[in-house]
Structure formats: C-alpha cells, structure tokens
C-alpha cells in the first residue's frame, strides 16, 4: 500500500516536471534548462515504474534499456545538424513502434471491451506512426525519392484499408480470442502508415513531421489507457497537443488546410501557365560584392537550398564581414522554410548566428522597404510574389516574405529550375532582382573572398 502510493506520487511529480519543462522550452533563455527538467521528470517516472512490485524479473527491462539507451545516445551524439529532419522522423517512428508494442504486450493483462479498444488504438496509431515515419525518413534522407507518389484510385485503396482496419478491430473487440483479427489490424495499420505519407512530398514535409510527432504522443496516450497509467496519458496528450499546434502553424504558413496537404498532391493544381514579364538579369560575384559593400542594411532569406549546399557557416562568415563593414544584417525565416519546423533556425544556430537576429516573417516584412539588399539563399516558394499578385497561382494567398520590397534582391540559385511546387517565380524577373547562379556555398564563399 505504502509503496504503491509512493509510485503514484512519483508519477504525479514526473507529470509536473514535464509540464514545467515544456513551459520553459517556450523561451530561448530557459529552453535548455526546461529540457533538463523534463529529463529529470522522465527519470523519476522510470524509477517509480521500476519500484512496482508486480515486476518479478529485471533482466528483460535492463537489457532493453541498455540496448535502446546506447543506440539513442550514439545517434544523438553523432547526427549532423543538417540531418535533424530525418533524425526527428526516425525518433517519432521509434516512439510510435514502442507504444504499439506496449499495446500488443498489454493483451496479456487485458480484460473488458474498453481495454481491448484502447489496445487496438495504440496498435493502430503506433503502427501508422512507425511506418509513416520510416517513409518520411526515407524521403528526407533521399534514400527514396522525396517527391509525392500518387496513383489512380489512391483514395479508393486508402478507403478500403480504413474499412479493413475498422472491420477487423470491431471483430477483435467482440471476440478477443480471434487473434487473426489482431494480426490484421497490425498489418493494415503498418500499411496505412506507408499509404498516408507516400503522396506527400518535398516542401510539405514540415507538416508531415509535425503530424507524426503528434501521433507519437497520441500513441503513448492510447498505450496509457491500455495499461491504466496516468502519467502516460498526461505526457502523451501533451505531446499530441504540441504536435497538432505545430501542424496548424505549418498549414497556416502555406495557406492550406490539413486535409489539402494530406490528400492532394500539389502537382495536380499547378498546371496553369502564368505569363511572366521581364527578363532574367544575372550578376557576377564581383558586381554583387560592390553592391553589398555599399549596403547598410542586408536581409538574408534562407531556404532548403542553404541546407542542401551546407552554406550556413559561410553565410555566417559573410554576415560578420558585412557587420564589420557597418552594415546591419538580419535573417528572415519563413515558418515552412526547410524540411521541418524551425529547420533554418537550428542550422544557423549551429553556425553561431545569434537567435535574436533570426526574424520571423511578420517581423521582417514591415522592415523590408528599408533593406538595401535582400539575399535569397536556396529559397523559392516562400519568397514567390505570385502568392500575393497572381490569383490563378496555386500558392495564391500563402503568406510570403516580401523580398521584392527591398531595394535590390540577390537570388542565389543553381539554375532556373522552378521550386518544389513547380511554379514560376516572377521574383526572378523583377527589375530589382539579380540572379547569382551557382552553388550557394561557392557563391557566398566568393563574396567572402572579395571582402577579405
């Protein structure tokens, strides 16, 4: 009795520490401590769980912890910051798989329909999270094509899978001895995870990652119901809620609804040809240097291309040289720039760029008119003025960074190929735009050499 109370109190303390830790994660000054506090909460919860007298064997537990902990530690230490999106995707998947397994294992202690329903839910959400995250991982690491995979009758097939899951779930709950129905749920959930992520590609990945993040929490929450444990429910739903909020922010930043991202590839609507007037004006590194040397206010707008070219460190070098030259330098970060929420911020933070120089879209846009040079590095759709000006454009209405308001715009780009969405970018044809063709890292490196 006494021990049981201590365990329960331990869970309460853990939940409190999670809440406190998450709150502190909301501000850059306290975020690191917040993360540590949340880790302490996890430690408390694990110790409390180990005190449980229902545990008669510790070998399996310790074995699992040592193996998993070692893998996690090595991965966390060695991963490059540029690979963070696929890392987060993989961790989401692992979390989902763990919750799904807890659901299956909980069958041994299950009684009553409600428990069976929650077991099914944790298997379903956990399974979808697992395979969905693996596909997301494959797309982000480019081990499989990063584009959207669509085929005729996709919705029909998905509908069949959903019906299959529902039918086998109902049959299993009605007759839990029918273990084949459980296998059907497991198999169909894993398949469904693949099916929901393959039609989503490229620039929509931030939405998918946030959503899978949310699912990994919801899976833990469902597992909490299955094993009757409060702390799983509290922690799981906190994570679920946070993932949903991020998903909403990402969708809003693209002016699309969640169902639009999930169910319709971008490509199907972008067939309209927009007439673009004007001509492309290339600029050499040398000429770009003269313009920058005279500038007093520069805004840098990074996109996924900066991550691909690994240009963040050389960008920081250029920033220092500009600042030494008496120029104010800020960064404009679009919410969906890159492949996951906050992708650019992490890369630039690693390159030692102070976070107070990273401005959100709503902060940089009003200042754009006083900017002498806006340097667009590997970003395309998030700076596309068609979103404001061309009503027929598929991205019309999406909030963008208004770089064209700056006196001069440099666009660093490999070639004239259009962005992921396949949409012409009228920005490249504006009078005040100059194209600096070539690898972003080399172009900026060239500018740095001109300065020094």
């Amino acid at each position, binding site marked *: 009795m006494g021990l049981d109370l201590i365990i329960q109190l331990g869970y309460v303390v853990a939940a409190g520490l999670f809440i406190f830790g998450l709150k502190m994660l*909301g501000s850059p000054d306290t*975020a690191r401590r917040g993360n540590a506090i949340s880790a302490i909460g996890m430690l408390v919860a694990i110790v409390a769980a180990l005190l449980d007298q229902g545990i008669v064997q510790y070998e399996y537990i310790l074995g699992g912890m040592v193996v998993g902990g070692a893998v996690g530690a090595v991965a966390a230490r060695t991963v490059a910051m540029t690979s963070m999106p696929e890392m987060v995707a993989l961790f989401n998947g692992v979390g989902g798989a*763990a919750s799904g397994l807890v659901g299956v294992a909980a069958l041994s202690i299950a009684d009553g329909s409600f428990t069976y329903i929650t077991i099914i839910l944790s298997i379903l959400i956990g399974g979808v999270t697992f395979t969905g995250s693996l596909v997301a991982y494959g797309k982000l690491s480019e081990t499989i094509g990063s584009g959207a995979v669509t085929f005729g009758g996709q919705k029909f097939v998905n509908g069949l899978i959903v019906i299959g899951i529902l039918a086998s779930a109902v049959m299993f709950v009605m007759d839990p001895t029918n273990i084949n129905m459980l296998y059907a749920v497991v198999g169909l959930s894993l398949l469904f995870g693949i099916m929901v992520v393959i039609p989503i590609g490229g620039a929509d990945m931030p939405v998918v990652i946030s959503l899978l*993040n949310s699912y990994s929490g919801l899976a833990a929450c469902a*597992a909490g119901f299955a094993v009757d444990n409060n702390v799983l429910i509290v922690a799981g739903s906190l994570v679920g809620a*946070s993932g949903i909020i991020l998903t909403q922010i990402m969708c809003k930043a693209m002016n699309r609804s969640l169902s639009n991202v999930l169910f319709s590839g971008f490509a199907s609507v972008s067939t309209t040809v927009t007439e673009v007037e004007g001509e492309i004006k290339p600029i050499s590194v040398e000429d770009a240097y003269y313009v920058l040397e005279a500038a007093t206010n520069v805004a840098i707008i990074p996109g996924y291309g900066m991550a691909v070219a690994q240009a963040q460190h050389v960008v920081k070098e250029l920033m220092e040289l500009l600042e030494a030259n008496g120029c104010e330098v800020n960064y404009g970060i679009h919410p969906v720039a890159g492949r996951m929420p906050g992708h650019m*911020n992490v890369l630039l933070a690693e390159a030692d760029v102070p976070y107070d120089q990273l401005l959100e879209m709503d902060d940089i846009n009003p200042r754009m008119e006083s900017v002498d040079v806006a340097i667009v590095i590997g970003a395309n759709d998030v700076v596309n003025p068609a979103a404001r000006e061309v009503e027929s454009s598929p991205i019309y209405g999406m909030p963008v960074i208004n770089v064209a308001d700056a006196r001069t715009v440099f666009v660093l780009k490999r070639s004239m190929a259009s962005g992921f969405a396949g949409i012409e970018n009228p920005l490249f044809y504006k009078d005040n735009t100059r194209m600096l063709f070539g690898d972003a890292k080399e172009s900026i490196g060239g500018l740095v050499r001109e300065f020094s």
Partner: protein
Amino acid sequence: MDVSYLLFILMLSVFLGFELINKVPATLHTPLMSGANAISGITVVGAIALAGSGNSDMAQWLGAGAVALASVNVVGGYMVTDRMLGFFKKKEG
C-alpha cells in the same frame, strides 16, 4: 481505474498542452519537437511493467522490445535536444 477518471485526465492535459505550446517562438520549433518526442518516450513506463511482469514469454519479449525502442526515444531525444539548444546563443554585447 475508472474510465471516466482517465478521460477526465486526458481532457485536462490536452487543454494544458495547447496552452503551453501556443506561445513557443518559431526559432524553437525544432527543439520543441524533439523535446516533445523525448517525452513521448514515457511509454517506457508502460513497457517496464509488461517486460517485468513474468506473465508470459510473449509479453516479456514484446515488453523488452518496447523498453528498448522507448529508451532510444528517451535517451536520444533528450540528448539531441540538449545538443541543439546548446547552439542557441544571444547576440553578445
């Protein structure tokens, strides 16, 4: 435990989650995500009980697998979040 009681907890924590996360600045979105992901490793608590229950071989092995996976999540998630947050610096001076 009573079902309605568990649902009650669920509802309150979902609302709390929305309130907590709503004001996180964009610059912290990635650490928030990986930090939250580490928290979702809480499923390790459920896995521990099942892995050690001595109930059946199958439950133990599944539980052990779940413990291992969730430990990847917990250890990796917290460590990588800490590593990332270590990079975030204010402008000096």
